[in-house]
């Protein structure tokens, strides 16, 4: 196949000065009509288009992106991939997604650098150990993998963690061996190239300015590059879900919040897993380039700005130094913020909407990256068949009204509890 990035191609291009590479996808003009329009050219939108073409044979598809492909949250996250969830509605879905991650580079013919280096959730009390034991058992029952580590296990796996911290002594951790991280841009680019090759039109700099609804059915969208007709429209717009939903007059249970992340200067290998601090909401891993990548929870207030405030930066650094004291001498390189689509119960929504032909993929909170392949797999199934597959049966839009919430944290289904 042309433009595969294999060894022989690389060698051949090396010998002729890399003059033979072509753009990885086309830059088409929008057509007047498509079978399916996906709004949003991020990870989820691109994977949805890819699986629509690959699994369901629907190739007359346009992905409309107001900026450039992969310029949103898929390029602004901490690249953690895992399926260590407690509730059936979540663990079924995320385990499917993790299985897709495991074969993704081969499937796409594009190295997404998925690195199953394991994740360890550290706990600091007997009750947290009980909760994590339960979660591990629940994961195993749903086909995921989990191992409970004691304190010595943490010392062995992550020698730099302050196990004897006097305020939050480490009791052990729950480890998922198959979890890990991946190269975030490559995921977007791999799906984009795969979708483009199967005939999907990836249309950049094309902002949707209206959604046309007639007699309760979607008939197309208005864009800054003219109207486009389609009987099926899927929304995968993350932090902008409420704004796009408003174009169709949909009231949605979403609040937009800013989440910050950080990366340090490059260092020699010092952290081999993804590790999370149980006493505060903090997670850290080391990228292949050597930078420490870490983050914590939301700033807390509603925001559409892709930047946060300094009190949260201070909080994250405090958590980092409490958990892994060795980082106190490390210099920070960059920080950034992404706009999260927060749902009331902290779990996503992949469902039909009250408008016929309009489909919703939203509420990813801070877990959207690991869901990228699974989200596209399931969302494309929903769009193609007009009914959900069993991975997303509980991820309903009306679950806050009916009370069948997926309350992963056990905190309740209200905004700002997650």
């Amino acid at each position: 196949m042309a433009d595969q990035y294999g060894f022989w191609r690389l060698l051949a291009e090396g010998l002729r000065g890399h003059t033979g590479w072509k753009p990885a996808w086309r830059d088409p003009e929008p057509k007047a009509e498509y079978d399916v329009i996906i709004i949003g050219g991020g990870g989820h939108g691109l994977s949805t288009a890819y699986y629509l073409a690959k699994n369901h044979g629907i190739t007359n598809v346009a992905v409309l992106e107001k900026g450039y492909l992969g310029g949103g949250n898929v390029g602004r996250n901490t690249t953690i991939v895992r399926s260590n969830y407690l509730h059936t509605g979540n663990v079924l879905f995320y385990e499917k997604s993790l299985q897709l991650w495991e074969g993704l580079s081969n499937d796409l013919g594009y190295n997404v650098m998925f690195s199953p280096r394991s994740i360890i959730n550290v706990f600091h009390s007997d009750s947290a150990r009980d909760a994590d034991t339960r979660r591990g058992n629940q994961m195993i029952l749903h086909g995921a993998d989990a191992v409970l580590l004691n304190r010595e296990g943490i010392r062995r796996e992550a020698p730099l963690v302050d196990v004897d911290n006097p305020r939050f002594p480490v009791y052990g951790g729950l480890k998922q061996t198959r979890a890990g991280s991946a190269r975030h841009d490559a995921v977007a680019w791999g799906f984009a190239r795969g979708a483009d090759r199967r005939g999907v039109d990836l249309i950049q700099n094309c902002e949707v300015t209206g959604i046309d609804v007639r007699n309760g059915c979607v008939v197309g969208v208005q864009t800054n590059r003219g109207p486009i007709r389609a009987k099926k429209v899927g929304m995968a717009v993350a932090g902008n879900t409420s704004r796009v939903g408003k174009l169709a007059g949909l009231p949605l249970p979403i609040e937009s919040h800013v989440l910050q992340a950080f990366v340090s200067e490059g260092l020699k290998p010092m952290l081999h897993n993804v590790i999370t601090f149980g006493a505060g909401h903090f997670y850290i891993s080391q990228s292949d380039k050597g930078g420490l990548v870490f983050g914590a929870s939301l700033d807390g207030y509603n925001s559409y700005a892709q930047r946060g405030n300094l009190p949260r930066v201070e909080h994250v650094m405090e958590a980092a130094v409490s958990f892994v004291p060795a980082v106190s001498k490390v210099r920070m390189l960059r920080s950034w913020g992404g706009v999260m689509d927060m749902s009331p119960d902290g779990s996503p929504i992949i469902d039909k909407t009250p408008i016929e032909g309009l489909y919703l993929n939203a509420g990813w909170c801070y877990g959207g990256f690991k869901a990228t392949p699974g989200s596209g797999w399931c969302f494309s199934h929903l769009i193609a068949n007009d009914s959900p597959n069993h991975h997303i049966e509980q991820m309903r839009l009306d679950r806050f009204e009916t009370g069948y919430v997926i309350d992963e944290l056990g905190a309740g289904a209200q905004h700002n509890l997650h």
Partner: protein
Amino acid sequence: MLIPCPHCGLRPSEEFVPKGLAEAPRPALGGRAKPDGPAWQNYLHLRDNVADHSHEYFHHALGCRSWIVVHRHTLTHEVTGATMAADFWKADKPAKGAKDAKSPTAETAEDGQ
């Protein structure tokens, strides 16, 4: 980010706990009548979530412990005023984005609910 608490004056945002958008009033319980489902769904879950001037609940947890409503822009983070939450849903709600002339002041120093 500095927040003009109506009771304490201009205070750093670290003293406050944000508690989400103030978009709909809490529905009345209505005695023995069946709860108004759509009104509660609207109050608890559905949000306009605008990229514009908005109103948000904050609790001044490390200060006077009042519940206040902060008037803030969600794109620029500019704070234009704050009112006591107890007063917010009464008549003459300030328009979104309008500078709140009364804030900050000690006049409205009643205990928010």
